[in-house]
């Protein structure tokens, strides 16, 4: 029975893998490490009890009460009470605290005299997330303090409770966080970064195994096994790893949406289909890079630069729509971008199966164009090789 060249290349590749499984093992360990790292790093979901300080010039009942109220919030805790502004500023520079409240002298006395004392709230946004979270806690407590005083005055005037509520807060916002009710920070990061890391590994690994053939001068044997059919040669070589990395992405998603309970409104099947397309597109890009830059060392360097940019260009942290227009177009060539968009459609908005995968169409296009381009380049390459 005559086997097709495609099957032969697959068996040849599996044989190579059996002889030198080290890289695949190392890559897998790297991916497992990343999952363990990210899941345990942000286990709390949102930073809590961030350190803040109070600069207390007043030393009164009010300032002590403010400290107690701050400590009672989930977001911050008062780690120090300073006598002057400079000490607190220095503490921020030392990163002992992220924010502080300054209570000027005579605050309580002025309050009792209806003289509107001013508090000052200092935050540093050099560390954006903790800066903003601690600002929010401090501002809430300050507003509540105002409200509490307001309420006391109205009570003493004999106003009833419903009218007091209206007087203090006539409007209330009833906020709904779609598909992430606790505003958990973890799903934002993990659902995109972790597939991104698998993608990074897949690209560099693909570059490596193709480059290796040229590097170890086994490329001739490879093409010979494929009977000169470049399509069979590439497809056979990449298929085992395509299956492997797709499987890893799907298992990764199983962990995220299974035991970790991230919201998945749509079907897991659609998400898995997306993962498969994503890996295929990445491998196509890798083949394209090898085709353009046959030098293995250089192509891996280029692959490294390309895959790191994917994290930023996917727009999960800073939206692509807020980037300069030229870069918005640039984001199309990153499969992670399409993965992110489709993931949002499927998981957060429960888009119908095919509509959800609509955003994944560019991935398919990416696969096709890159494959065709690289096949053309390879054909030229083999032609020149044959001629010489």
């Amino acid at each position, binding site marked *: 029975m005559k086997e097709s060249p495609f099957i032969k290349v697959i068996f040849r590749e599996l044989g190579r893998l059996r002889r030198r499984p080290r890289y695949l093992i*190392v890559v897998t360990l790297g991916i497992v490490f990343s999952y363990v790292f990210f899941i345990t*790093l*942000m286990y709390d979901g*949102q*930073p*809590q*009890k961030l350190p803040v300080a109070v600069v207390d010039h007043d030393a009164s009942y009010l300032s002590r009460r403010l400290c107690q109220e701050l400590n009672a919030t989930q977001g911050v805790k008062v780690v120090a009470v300073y006598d002057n502004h400079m000490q607190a500023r220095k503490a921020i*520079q030392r*990163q002992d605290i*992220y924010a502080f*409240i300054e209570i000027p002298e005579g*605050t309580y006395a002025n309050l009792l005299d*209806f003289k*509107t*004392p*001013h508090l*000052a709230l200092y*935050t540093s*946004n*050099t560390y*954006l*997330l903790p*800066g*903003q979270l601690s600002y929010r806690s401090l501002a809430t407590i300050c507003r509540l303090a*105002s409200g509490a005083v*307001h309420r006391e*005055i109205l009570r003493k005037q004999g106003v009833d409770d*419903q009218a007091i509520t*209206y*007087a203090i807060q*006539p*409007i209330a*916002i*009833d*906020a709904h*966080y*779609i598909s992430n009710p606790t505003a958990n920070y973890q799903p934002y990061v993990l659902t995109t*970064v972790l597939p*991104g*890391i698998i993608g*990074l590994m897949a690209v*560099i690994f693909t570059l*490596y195994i193709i*480059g290796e053939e040229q590097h170890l001068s086994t490329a001739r044997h490879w093409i010979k096994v494929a009977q000169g059919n470049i399509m069979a040669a590439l497809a056979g070589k990449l298929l085992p790893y395509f299956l492997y990395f797709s499987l890893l992405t799907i298992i990764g998603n199983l962990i995220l949406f299974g035991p970790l309970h991230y919201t998945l409104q749509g079907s897991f099947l659609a998400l898995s289909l997306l993962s498969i397309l994503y890996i295929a597109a990445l491998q196509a890009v890798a083949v394209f890079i090898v085709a353009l830059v046959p030098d293995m*060392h*250089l192509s891996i*360097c280029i692959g490294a*630069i390309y895959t*790191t940019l994917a994290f*930023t260009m996917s727009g*999960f942290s*800073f*939206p692509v729509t*807020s*980037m*300069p227009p030229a*870069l918005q177009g640039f984001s199309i060539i990153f499969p992670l971008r399409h993965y992110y968009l489709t993931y949002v*459609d499927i998981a*957060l*908005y429960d888009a119908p199966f095919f509509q959800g995968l609509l955003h994944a169409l560019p991935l398919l296009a990416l696969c096709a164009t890159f494959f065709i381009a690289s096949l053309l380049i390879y054909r030229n390459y083999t032609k020149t090789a044959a001629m010489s």
Partner: protein
Amino acid sequence: MKTAQRLKDVYDVFVIELQRIAADKGVILIFFIATLLYPLIFGAIYKEEAVRRLPIAVVDDSRSDYSRRFTHKLDATPEVDICYCPNTMREAQHLMERRKINGIVYFPPEYATNLAIGRQSNLSLYCDMSSFLYYRSVYSAASATMLDEMETLQRRTYSDKGVAGLDASTKIEPIPFDDVKLFTPSAGFESFLVPALLVMVIHQTLFLGIGILAGTTVEDRRTLEMIPRRLRHKSIYRVSIGRALAYILIYIPVVAVVLFLFPKLFGLPHIGSMGDILLFLLPFMLATIFFCMTTAAFIHHRDSGILTLFFFSIILVFLSGIVWPQEAMPDFWRHFSYIFPSTHGVQGYVRLNSMGAGLRDVRFEYLMLWGLAGFYFITTITLTYLENYRHLKRSELHRRIHLQWTLRQAKK
């Protein structure tokens, strides 16, 4: 004489290392192109600092003066832009699902009636949670509008009672507060993330470059060719110093451009004193270089090195405490992060450069970096020595086998 000889040794290694770098296209790409490309791209990506004019929809079932005023005020915020006013929540939901909008504000029918009879009124806000910045922008726009609208309503209640002006202010907000944003007044994304990324770029390009160089040497089986013959025994430390000097020389212009010129070009915060930053960068560069040389000793193939260690860049960014605060990290990861020069480098540079801290304020990071520099220097020379020793033993063995073989041949 002896000192002169030592210096000459260091100088020889230094020159050899520079030649190796110059001969490697991949390393040149990483040392000179990547270090410039990354900051430029990051600078361009985050140029807008914040998310502005996010499209949202307002569904107004109240159709009243109150809800219209709220809508106008909301539209006036920089963060959001009311693009759609659908008639039903269903339509709005549909828009949201098609990703046309990033938030919905809904006024229930009783919104105005409640306010008119002096009862607290609710309005609903639906936030797109697909990106943290979407959520933050929509939420902060809505709550800022709410605060403003509240004051309008409260003032009207009091003016109905004949209390106005300062009197009313005192009643409505007895303890007002001023909001001061220190160091980065724009509170933006670029001024927060890019300085940290600049340090990471320095760290990671060195890591990759040194790793590649080490891998190539091992692959080509000429570990010792780069070491002058007379240095192959006890004076191995001169080799490490010579090589480190070569990297430092190359990185002087790179650091000058990346850490000093780029912040000025992009208008990032740069209020630090140059002297302090330079003093801080000295142990940072030494620690990073020796750290990379230590790791590189374990790399036996050029490309597997990149393959296995490259994903670590992403992990190092998160370990540095710039994205996820150090306070919120589990103790294990916090201590783990201390062994990487990048953690201290990012923390120190950001505080010196963006917050204008003095060297004394980053004492912990500064001392840790010197400690790491010393530690990794020792590990580097130990590893080089061991490798050298193994190699010598092996060549000694080869020599003996060869000798025996020749003797046997001669006997025959």
